[in-house]
């Protein structure tokens, strides 16, 4: 038994023999000595085979879905038939270059051009061009080879996997995916999540350590790969698979059900999203709105901040897709551990106590202005709530509200129609702001608790630091008391209270949250149905009783005990 660790990127468990996708070793000559007629024949055969394979893929997925798969297959097919690309390849071969060289060169030329663009979505498409090129190169390497047919359950182990390769290799027998490289925001990873295949990326050395038909156990959430697990580990993982399977089937019944307690109190179960790519997945799980859309990811992996128009399009898409539910979009939460090269964030001794969240934005008005203007415009397309992070005092809220007013007047002066006013709210992450909720309420429409940060600042412990991680404790009585304080502060105001931290998905905590008057629980899309099922099983009376007991607890242990 050997245990490897990678980055868990699609949750779930799997146990099956390994199928290793061997690397095609692509070496080719740069010399101009090849017979162009022969090379051109090889090209035509390989090309028509690839076009045929891709048409079949496209047909298959456009009939059976999911939609993302059909779109990717179709885009690849169009790329394979691109006249400009084909004519570049043929002209390299006309100069006596080898077919492999010509395909690679023509594709790299396009891929590099696209990679140099500002638009992060387009930059990712360079991978699609390389994907199509690699298909051709494989077809040249082994002409007439049918795509390898795999029978029986298996876990795919590969150096890296292109989206189209995943589409070709996907079958209900594909139980897990383990990649030596891989990128958490690539199409391959998004597809794996859509197919609900447990996936682990960046597993160092996995290609050397796994032999064909080794048995592999995969824990998609924790990122643990076990090669040839022993009997007890096998039993452990099989139980988890069974439980998951059973649960998944059962949870389907909750997709289009409202989240209402047994005694009729409606709660919104919403999703936390890092990007618009995961919208469809969340909608498929019956999410009741978006409780947290993190915008700082829009700033990353590029050379300059996105324009107002680009941001407007993203926000609008999010707002429109969840309408009539609410979309809560959080303004840039940068600083702390989130670094962005071109913003020149200062190096700080104590980044978590430094210039982050709203503090940064209020000192960098041009960046903030662009975002607020995009949000005010996007608000016209549905129900938007603008949420600001890392607030510690009322002055920050007032300054934000003033800016909001100012940018609104600007837009009106430019002739923009702004009939809908978005709701405004703040994250509660800092103890100081938890204590003045009642004073803030008259300026705002909602509060949403970010539990990880709130616990970190309450307990003065970093959960990523293994020496003190156990002190970062959701069951510390002070955490519950703080939640009670917030809940009391919101009572008798017109604000609603939500939560978008990890705690919202904790089953034992959910009765407490309901009793404390939370109207919205925002969780990762994969946890929406489980949370909804739990709410349907609760009634407020017993939730209140549990809360009374829990409030008396004087240690983590006794608090946990009170929740049983």
């Amino acid at each position, binding site marked *: 038994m050997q245990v490897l660790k990678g980055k868990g990127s699609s949750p779930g468990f799997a146990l099956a023999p390994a199928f290793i996708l061997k690397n095609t070793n692509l070496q080719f000559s740069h010399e101009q000595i090849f017979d162009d007629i022969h090379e051109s024949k090889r090209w035509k055969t390989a090309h028509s085979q690839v076009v045929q394979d891709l048409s079949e893929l496209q047909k298959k997925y456009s009939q059976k879905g999911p939609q993302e798969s059909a779109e990717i297959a179709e885009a690849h097919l*169009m790329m394979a038939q691109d006249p*400009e*690309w084909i004519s570049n390849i043929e002209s390299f071969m006309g100069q006596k270059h080898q077919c492999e060289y010509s395909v690679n060169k023509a594709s790299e030329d396009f891929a590099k051009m*696209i990679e140099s663009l500002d638009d992060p979505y387009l930059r990712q*498409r360079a991978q699609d061009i390389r994907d199509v090129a690699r298909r051709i190169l494989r077809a040249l390497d082994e002409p007439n080879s049918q795509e390898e047919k795999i029978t029986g359950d298996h876990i795919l182990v590969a150096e890296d996997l292109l989206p189209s390769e995943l589409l070709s290799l996907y079958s209900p027998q594909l139980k897990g995916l383990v990649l030596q490289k891989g990128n958490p925001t690539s199409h391959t990873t998004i597809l794996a999540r859509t197919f609900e295949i447990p996936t682990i990326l960046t597993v160092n050395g996995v290609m050397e350590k796994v032999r064909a038909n080794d048995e592999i156990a995969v824990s998609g959430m924790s990122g643990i790969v076990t090669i040839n697990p022993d009997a007890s580990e096998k039993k452990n993982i099989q139980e988890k698979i069974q439980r998951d399977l059973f649960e998944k089937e059962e949870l389907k019944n909750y997709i289009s059900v409202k989240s209402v307690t047994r005694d009729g109190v409606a709660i919104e179960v919403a999703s936390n999203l890092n990007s618009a790519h995961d919208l469809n997945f969340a909608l498929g799980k019956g999410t009741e709105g978006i409780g947290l859309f993190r915008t700082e990811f829009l700033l990353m992996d590029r050379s300059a901040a996105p324009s107002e128009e680009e941001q407007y399009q993203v926000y609008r898409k999010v707002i429109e897709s969840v309408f009539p539910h609410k979309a809560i979009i959080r303004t840039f939460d940068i600083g702390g551990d989130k670094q962005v090269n071109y913003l020149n964030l200062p190096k700080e001794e104590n980044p978590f106590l430094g210039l982050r969240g709203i503090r940064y934005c209020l000192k960098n008005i041009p960046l903030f202005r662009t975002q607020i203007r995009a949000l005010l415009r996007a608000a016209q397309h549905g129900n938007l709530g603008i949420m600001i992070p890392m607030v510690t005092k009322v002055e920050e809220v007032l300054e934000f509200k003033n800016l909001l007013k100012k940018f609104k007047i600007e837009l009106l002066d430019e002739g923009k129609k702004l009939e809908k006013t978005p709701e405004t709210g703040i994250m509660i992450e800092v103890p100081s702001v938890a204590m003045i909720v009642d004073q803030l309420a008259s300026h705002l429409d909602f509060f949403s608790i970010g539990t990880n940060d709130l616990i970190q600042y309450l307990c003065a412990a970093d959960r990523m630091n293994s020496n003190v991680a156990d002190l970062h404790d959701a069951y510390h009585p002070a955490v519950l008391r703080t939640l009670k304080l917030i809940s009391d502060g919101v009572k008798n105001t017109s604000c609603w209270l939500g939560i978008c931290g990890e705690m919202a998905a904790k089953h034992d905590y959910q009765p407490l949250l309901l009793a404390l008057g939370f109207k919205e629980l925002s969780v990762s899309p994969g946890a929406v149905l489980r949370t909804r099922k739990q709410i349907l099983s609760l009634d407020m009376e017993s939730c209140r009783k549990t809360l009374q007991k829990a409030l008396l607890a004087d240690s983590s242990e006794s608090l946990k005990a009170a929740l049983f």
Partner: protein
Amino acid sequence: MTLEKTFKLESQDGLHARPAGLFVKCLAPYQVTVEVELRGQKKNGKSIMSLMSLGASPGDDLKITVTGNDADSALKCIEDLFAKRFSAE
């Protein structure tokens, strides 16, 4: 016959894979050459890779030149596409 017209890109996203694909697909039936120009770069309008490599974002003005016997119908098809903001239906 050569026709020329400038369009403002008002689709949700920039000229991404899906809208670029729709553009190419709509031109496929016509005997025309199509040139798309943005900020001095001219690209083949029948090539999805070339269109994406323009990096056109919402709000950009694209100058489109259509040459050939079917120029009329091809341009009409492009007009529809822009009018619908590249939505599929």
